[in-house]
């Protein structure tokens, strides 16, 4: 079993705009652990640094500072090319993450060949079919011969999951795996990931902006806001008893008609049940303001 320890992970992007140079801190001292069999959810709005963390874990970006330590059960560290055998990633957009030129078989067979999981064409093919069957793609023989444009979004995302698990990965980074899918098939893909996690005892980092699925599928939730972890804790307590204003806002944005108004008000916001539309929540200061930018007194 493989676990990941992320310590003080920081990523800065240098932006050059004409003569001006500025630094954007996309991820600011984020720490968390990924343990076998457990799911950590990263929640936050667009631009909060969720995907940058995923890309750093997948070694697509280099961290500016901080460390990502992947260790086996006996505490031996995982380095170099072996890293990719242990840590794999599922991308957000299944319509972009499969090469339109290659067959499904190619996508699943390549990681098997790169990491020498199989020998010979026959064994590789057998393994590819097995992987496709594991992600509920049947008839697997038929689907292996197809090309990405002949599959639906849900099927493509299953192929992407099969590809990620093909090298025998123990750590799975799922970067908003269902946000591009039809609502009707999201649950199927999420349940599939939960089943695979149980079977393989995977450590999963689940990145999302959907609090409902984060609560349902994860053990721990980290709320990310402008690159910083503003709140963390067991899934249920973060959702049901949010402490930080931003988490309260996120929880309140979830479309739950019964709870919505109450939560916002409980968070210390003005009563908006009337027709007073002159106040708005400022995402960046975490305050309610009226139209003339004065903070609204908490009732």
């Amino acid at each position, binding site marked *: 079993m493989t676990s990941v320890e992320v310590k003080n992970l920081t990523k800065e992007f240098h932006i050059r705009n004409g003569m001006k140079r500025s630094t954007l801190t996309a991820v600011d001292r984020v720490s968390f652990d990924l343990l076998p069999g457990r799911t950590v959810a990263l929640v936050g709005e667009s631009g909060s640094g969720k995907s940058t963390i995923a890309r750093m874990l997948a070694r*697509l970006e280099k961290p500016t500072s901080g460390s990502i330590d992947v260790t086996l059960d006996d505490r031996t560290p995982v380095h170099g090319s072996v890293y*990719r055998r242990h840590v794999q990633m599922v991308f957000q957009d299944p319509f*972009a*993450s499969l*090469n339109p*030129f290659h067959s499904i078989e190619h996508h699943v067979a*390549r990681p098997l060949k790169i990491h020498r999981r199989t020998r010979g064409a026959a064994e590789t093919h057998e393994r590819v079919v097995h992987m496709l069957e594991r992600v509920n793609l049947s008839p697997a023989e038929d689907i292996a*011969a*197809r090309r990405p444009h002949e599959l639906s979004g849900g099927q493509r995302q299953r192929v992407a999951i099969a590809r990620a698990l093909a*090298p025998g990965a123990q750590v799975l980074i799922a970067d908003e795996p269902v946000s591009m899918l039809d609502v009707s098939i999201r649950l199927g893909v999420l349940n599939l990931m939960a089943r695979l996690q149980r079977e393989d005892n995977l450590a999963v980092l689940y990145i999302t902006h959907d609090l409902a699925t984060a609560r349902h599928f994860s053990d721990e939730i980290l709320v990310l806001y402008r690159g910083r972890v503003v709140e963390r804790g067991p899934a249920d307590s973060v959702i049901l008893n949010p402490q930080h204003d931003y988490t309260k806002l996120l929880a309140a944005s979830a479309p739950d008609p019964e709870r919505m108004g109450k939560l916002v008000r409980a968070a210390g916001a003005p009563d908006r049940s009337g027709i007073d539309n002159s106040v708005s929540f400022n995402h960046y200061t975490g305050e309610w303001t009226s139209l003339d930018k004065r903070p609204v007194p908490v009732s």
Partner: protein
Amino acid sequence: MTNLTPTTEPSVADADEALAATAREEGRKPRAGWRAMLPSMTPSLVIGFGIVAAIVLFGLLGPLFVQDPTTVRNSGLQPPGGGHLLGTTQTGQDVLAQLAFATRGSLEIGLIVGVLATLLSAFFGVLGAYLGGFADEAFSLFSNVMLVIPGLPLVIVISGFVPQEQRGLWTIAVVLAITGWAASARVLRAQTLSLRNRDYVAASRVAGERSWRVIAVEILPNLLPVIASQFVFAVIFAILSEAGLAFLGLGASNSSTLGTMLFYAQNGFALQLKAWWWFVPPGLIIALLGCGLSLINFSIDEIINPKLRNVRAHAKRMRIARKAAAR
């Protein structure tokens, strides 16, 4: 206005089903990777391919059957007919024989330049864009410099600079390749920049693919239609430029091409002597070859631009649907 009367036009969805049904019946497999890259048989492709194939066959096999193109006879400027199918030149050389050898020479130049220019543009365009950073800046600066250098004057200067006895087929081909690759490299660079940021390239890197494999297996196949059309364009460019150079007297010294034929026809006052059989055949072959290659290029366009393909696919489906409705 809403039209509530049901249309008699058969629906495209029905045709889709009909197509799928016939495919199932015949047990056809879906088109695999390489086959889908081939352009489908459109009228323009068939015509273009026919023209080019005929000219290539003539250039390949023609020289085996014709007389010696250099034999000088007393019967100068004979119109077509008699012993000479396309007449003779001023010095009594057989025009058909000259035409066959000249076509072969022009095709050789076109092919060599096409391959060289495509290789150069793929190297500078794809590699620079994939590596990014300093390599990209350097490669793209270099191709920009090559791009703004006016082609034909440079070709004339280089051709004029190389002594005539050394100015062989390969010299001309290299000169044309060096002046002809830059525009294609820029197109390939732009396309690669877009491709390398696609998720599937990132996914293959996460899977552990090496850089050369990412370029060769994940990126390059998606560039093939662009490269193919640029190759065809480079061939047209080379044949036309070589004809232009040769017409100016700056062509290869040891080989005959369509351009050198026109050069000698011009020098021999073919136009003033109304010896049309001397200059029309080489001119016609150049024009037909350019036309045929362009038609092929239009068909390759369909692969690059799926919108064009959809228009035709839709028309085909509608035809099938109408047929099914008529039955």
